[in-house]
């Protein structure tokens, strides 16, 4: 990675973090998602195709990471951007499974930094309340944006951008030391490949906990599962069928409700 690429990726890490200047809807919920992150890293590094190979399994793995206020909150963008960039930088000449394994490891490292920086910014934001109090007491409506956007963003930007630049440049420096694909022992890449494949179960399991409201609904999940294993449909085909069935189900329920009323 050259310096421009490092800065560009670090900037997107900031934009995709919780409460960045573009708002959580565009930032954390869109730019921060692994699928989108891989696309952007791919564009910056000039290899969208490989980046997407990494982005799809990363997205599945981190599917459950959705609430910025919850107990497991941390800057997902750190994990996703660093994971993809790390795999692209270190994974030259590796096959897809090994690339994914490598991405998982780098995402883990990035995620750890993200978790620390989120807690730091969360603490540093506290004194801003006093500034807001002061302007509020003066009744100065035109200054209310200062503690929230100006100072809030200075802290947010410093906490995300600077560590990201340091992390990404040290990764670049290390990667120039040699060809890592040949240096890593075979059993490590085998294990990383196995780990990457199994980690997809984490995202899916957490999503299931959001979607399963009643016990019998496990059958819907299993139906989707066997549509792939027995009927050999791809996920796109299942998504189309699922959408059509959901519309039918919606209309059916509405009809039942009308009957109840009548």
């Amino acid at each position, binding site marked *: 990675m050259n310096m421009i690429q490092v800065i560009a990726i670090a900037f997107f890490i900031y934009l995709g973090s919780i*409460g960045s200047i573009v*708002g959580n*809807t565009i930032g*954390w*919920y869109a730019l921060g*998602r692994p699928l989108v992150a891989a*696309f952007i890293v*791919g564009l910056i590094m000039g290899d*969208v*195709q490989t980046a*997407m190979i990494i982005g*799809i*399994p990363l997205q599945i793995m981190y599917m459950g990471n959705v609430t*910025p*206020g919850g107990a497991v909150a941390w800057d997902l963008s750190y994990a996703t951007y660093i994971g993809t960039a790390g795999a692209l930088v270190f994974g030259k000449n590796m096959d897809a499974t090994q690339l994914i394994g490598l991405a998982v490891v780098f995402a883990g490292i990035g995620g750890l930094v993200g978790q620390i920086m989120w807690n730091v910014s969360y603490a540093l*934001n506290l004194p801003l*309340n006093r500034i807001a109090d002061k302007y*509020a007491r*003066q*009744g100065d*409506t035109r200054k*209310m*944006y200062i503690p*929230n956007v100006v*100072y809030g*963003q200075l802290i947010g930007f410093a906490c995300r951008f600077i560590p990201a630049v340091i992390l990404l440049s040290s990764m670049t420096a290390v990667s120039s030391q040699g060809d890592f694909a040949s240096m890593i022992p075979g*059993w490590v890449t085998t*294990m990383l490949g*196995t780990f990457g*494949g*199994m980690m*997809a*179960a*984490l995202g899916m*399991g957490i*999503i*299931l906990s*959001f*979607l399963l409201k009643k016990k019998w*609904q496990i059958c819907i*999940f299993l*139906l*989707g*599962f*066997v*549509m*792939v*294993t*027995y009927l050999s449909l*791809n*996920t*796109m085909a*299942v*998504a189309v*069928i*699922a959408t059509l*069935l959901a519309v039918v*189900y*919606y209309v059916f*329920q509405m009809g039942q409700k009308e009957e109840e009323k009548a």
Partner: protein
Amino acid sequence: MSKKLSKKTLNKAFWNWFFWNGCSQQAESMLGMGFGQSMAPVIEELYDTKEEKAEALERHITLFNTEAQVGSVCNGIVCGMEEANANGQCTPEVISSVKVALIGPTSAIGDSLWVATIIPILLTICLSIAQGASASLSWTGALLYLVVYPVLTCLLSRRLFYFGYKSGLEGMSKFMTTGKMDILTNSMNFLGLLVVGALSASFVACSIPFQIVKDVFDVETGETLADQVIFNADTMLDGIFPKLIPLLLVLGVYYLYAKKKWSPMKLMGVILVLAAVLTAIGYLTGYYV
């Protein structure tokens, strides 16, 4: 003459909230400062004296938290109430208590319906597109999500804001009791579960690296065939139920996360250990060379 908020001020209040609700999130007032910034143009328009403005601002930078995208309905409701207050039809105490009362239900709807249902479903659809498309076009799925999610959310969030302003607290509670919400959630859940099932089958990979390889003596031809696979754990398990192990893994994670309240970090560690054990078995039995 009664005071009325202009469209321009309301828009300002909405956009302030939409973009900057989480800018200064912290443990003391959560999204309080963001809420205060959203209310600032409203207060500026409604109140004349410095003292009135100060009083109004102070009640809006206190603790406030919600799922901000769906929570814009709170901002709408509070805008309506501030307007009523400026016309002497409401009191600051009522505004503050309504605000606190709104935290619970709007967070619950926002988190469960929008964040935990719509996002995963939209992502799974975009993932299917990314995976189904040829390798050189798989970025279309990512781009689709990047465009569709923010636009969809912005439209919804804006609509909810104006809904809150126009119909107030009564309008919201009326809507919530119609039951339409449940039907929509049920249908969304159905769609999500089916796609998550398909994604699990396509992406979760886990095989048992164990097989027995032996030289076999063929009776008919009288030749010895070298290195024949007599037993392969995956082939056997797939014969019973294809992808049984990945399925059990997903259900296992679900059980430990939802029922046993394990943290994602702990689960990740367990998966890493399992992967290491499986790799070790593979090498010990000569599956990997």
